[in-house]
């Protein structure tokens, strides 16, 4: 029997507000344990939460960007459970009336394009962190992360493969980062994903029994875990077994998912509206204001690049991977007026140099105006494209503008016919055997002569000029 995977993803994204969701504590990562924790974070008796409006604004940005309906009145609810990293004994989240519902995003992957539904987006507070002492039978509680704002984005069970899941996640990630509401750092857990996976016989409507996957802290791991889990379930079903509804953890080292140890208790979170908070009212004017201030989203930008700059979809994809990169590229284009050539330089040499050092485009020593100036030097024949590669490296290393680099290094292209002809003459004289070969019809030797001439001119000779003159002079 052929099985079809059904996958739904729950993404938790940490919002980039300066302060926490229900108090004035800083959200900065890496502070000394419990140094960013006030009586509200500690859940002291008598303290009360006060909603940070910025959190709502950030969440609404995501809701608009994912085509969700923003609920005019949404309600915070208490999710009750005991755990030492949860000081109040409940997490303030949203349940029956979340911030936003019924959206979608379009994703692209090798197999094509697809629209994936978003069931809901809700706001909630993060819990603290437990640090286990390896040498002693106790644990420490760090409540700095308590109350850091999160949004949870729940997809519809529309995803049918690990590849689609990965494409969906990357797209969500990209939108969050574009909106500047989440830094997207997966290693620090600022963007985390859980997956619900089940299989059903192809053609069947009803869902099969699902497993929930956790602990996948990179795009690659999400894809690997899903691929593994789909195979695991398929194997069980094909051999006549039944899937157990359970939470499974991805083990990166072993490349497999494992059922969470211990008795899986059915949690009853006893949700109810938090009486310490009033319903969040979101009027249309507010949504409109946020919408009008929204940046261009990656997909729109990509389509505009393809249309306006006439660059291939692949290039547009690379250049819009981040807002900063897209801005860099557009500035170069604005200054040099050559979109395709600019795309090659940004995607090629600039990104290669940055990647070698894991440097961000925002810290690129080659400023857009320098790269644009260099492109113009190639266009007007001042330097050759080949020399330009060295120029970029030098600009990257020193931060100097191209003019200075070219002059200091004497890299100006030789376009003087006499000078090039001189060099060619010397090369021909020095290589009579190759000349004879060429004249007897071995065209391939032509390349040898080009190489020798370029070598003799330290690469500075204008390649087109070299070609033209060489052809003439070799012919005699």
């Amino acid at each position, binding site marked *: 029997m052929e099985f079809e995977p059904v996958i739904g993803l729950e993404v938790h994204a940490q919002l980039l507000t300066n302060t926490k969701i229900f108090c004035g504590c800083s959200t900065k990562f890496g502070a000394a344990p419990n140094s960013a924790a006030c009586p509200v974070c500690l859940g002291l008796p*008598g303290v*009360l939460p006060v909603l940070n409006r910025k959190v709502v604004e950030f969440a609404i940005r995501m809701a608009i960007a994912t085509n969700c309906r923003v609920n005019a009145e949404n309600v915070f609810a208490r999710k009750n459970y005991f755990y*030492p990293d949860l000081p109040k004994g409940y997490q303030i989240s949203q349940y029956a009336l979340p911030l936003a519902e019924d959206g979608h995003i379009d994703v692209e992957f090798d197999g094509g394009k697809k629209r994936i539904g978003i069931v809901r987006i809700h706001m909630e507070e993060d819990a603290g962190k437990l640090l286990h002492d390896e040498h002693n039978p106790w644990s420490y509680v760090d409540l700095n992360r308590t109350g850091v704002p999160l949004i949870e984005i729940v997809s519809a069970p529309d995803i049918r493969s690990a590849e689609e899941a990965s494409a969906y996640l990357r797209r969500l990630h990209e939108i969050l980062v574009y909106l500047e509401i989440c830094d997207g750092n997966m290693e620090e857990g600022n963007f985390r994903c859980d997956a619900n996976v089940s299989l059903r016989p192809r053609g069947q409507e009803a869902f099969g029994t699902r497993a929930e996957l956790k602990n996948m802290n990179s795009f690659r791991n999400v894809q690997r875990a899903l691929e593994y889990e789909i195979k695991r379930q398929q194997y069980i079903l094909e051999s006549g077994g039944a899937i157990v509804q359970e939470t499974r953890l991805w083990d990166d080292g072993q490349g497999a998912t494992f059922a969470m140890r211990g008795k899986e208790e059915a949690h009853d979170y006893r949700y109810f509206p938090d009486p*310490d908070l009033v319903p969040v009212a979101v009027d249309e004017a507010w949504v409109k204001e946020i919408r009008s201030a929204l940046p261009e989203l990656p997909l729109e930008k990509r389509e505009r690049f393809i249309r306006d700059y006439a660059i291939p979809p692949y290039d547009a994809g690379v250049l819009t991977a981040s807002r900063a990169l897209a801005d860099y590229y557009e500035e170069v284009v604005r200054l040099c007026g050559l979109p395709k050539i600019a795309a090659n330089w940004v995607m090629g040499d600039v990104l290669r140099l940055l990647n070698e050092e894991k440097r961000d485009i925002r810290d690129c020593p080659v400023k857009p105006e320098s790269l644009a100036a260099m492109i113009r030097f190639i266009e007007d024949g001042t330097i050759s494209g080949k020399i330009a590669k060295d120029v970029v490296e030098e600009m990257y290393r020193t931060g100097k503008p191209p003019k200075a680099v070219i002059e200091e290094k004497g890299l100006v292209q030789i376009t003087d016919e006499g000078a090039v002809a001189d060099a060619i003459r010397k090369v021909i004289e020095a290589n009579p055997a190759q000349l004879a070969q060429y004249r007897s019809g071995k065209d391939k030797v032509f390349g040898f002569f080009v190489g020798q001439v370029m070598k003799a001119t330290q690469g500075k000779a204008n390649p087109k000029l070299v070609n033209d003159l060489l052809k003439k002079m070799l012919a005699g």
Partner: protein
Amino acid sequence: MELYERTIHELQRLLRDGETTAVEICRSVFARIEAVEPRVHAYIALMREPAMAAAAAADEAIRRGDPPPLAGIPIALKDIYCTKGFPTTCGSRILQNFVPPYDAAVVEKLRAAGAVFTGKTNMDEFAMGSSTENSAFGVTRNPWDLDRIPGGSSGGSAAAVAADLCIASLGSDTGGSIRQPASLCGVVGMKPTYGRVSRFGLIAFASSLDQIGPFTKDVEDCAILMNAIAGYDPRESTSVPEEVPDYRGFLGRGIEGWTVGIPREYFVAGIDPEVLACVRGAIRVVESLGARCVDVSLPHTEHCLSVYYIIAPAEASSNLARYDGVKYGYRAEGAADLLEMYKKSRSEGFGPEVKRRIMLGTYALSSGYYDAYYKKASQVRALVRNDFDEVFRSCDALLTPTTPTPAFRIGEKTADPLQMYLSDICTISANMAGIPGISVPCGYSSEGLPIGVQFLAGHFAEGKLLQIAAAFEKGANIPRRKPKL
């Protein structure tokens, strides 16, 4: 007359005229405490030294000529308010050693107003109870009869005012916890509108019902304290940014031409005949003052108690989850693992009534029961609120008994929680609807126990409530009796 017997407004006059000092007042009150407190046990902890220092500071301010409004007035605080640097127990073993690093909003306000705090008063554990018998720190006795309960949960605050162990006090009212003990101890007690006084720093019992209010010796003092504690607080999301009038301005205005509703559902079987007689007397007084008393109906009254015992425990079950032995408060020794630590700490730290309500509330919120209990209760609560909105279209205020009986005996109802719960039958509806209510003494039983009458008004109509309470107090002209201690 001793200084400790005085009201706030009398002491303010004496201080202004230089006839006494804050330090003298403070000494007088603490002398009274020394003499009487061992028999009443109104306090969990006394603040003698900080009180004397605050009194001296008040005298200094008076000498400088710029005393804050409550300079030198000894006020007792229910042990449910966080007091910076001073233990706050909420009547519970689980918070026995808890010292808050901050002041509750009302404590801040009173401190800034120059009040002298005498101590933290006894209460039913986490404000759950109607007799102050549920405290982890002993029973408070009714000053009028030491074998009887003072009411609850703010029994300590009520008894302290009645026995002159302070000049006024603050309590909290979730289902009648100010008005019921005020009635049983013969003092004035007011529950303001939900949202009128900041709950910040008030240890939560049931967040959507809890409200803070004063216990005073007369209505004028109640207005004075309301002036001091009412107002919007940005630290509390349910606090309402509604302007606070000068409540003293409502006193002495009279109630000529008012319509006062007498809700028939509050005059049914179960109300003690002597209470009924007293309250009927109060109706006649109100009529004699030029008001028209009319029969009105609040049809959903009969459901109030059941709705309350779903909503309040549900919220409490969640509010009290933080007492887990991890961060502060009581932690049981010798637990083998986390789950056992939770279980032992909470089993040993909470008393039986608190456990009962946590279980009730946990059940009511459980998956599969939520719709039938919590959700349904919330819907009925809206109907109760509508009932009041409806009658306040035609009535300026309502008049009811505060409690069905005078103070009962210690131990009389501890074996039967339902009987205990019924003692809040007249007060719970105001919490359901979020409206203000006040209990004013209206007479004594044949055994000499105080009886109170309750006035209710619409949202944020505390002014009107004080207006009718003051008019009634003056018109009834009940001789000012003091308990014999």
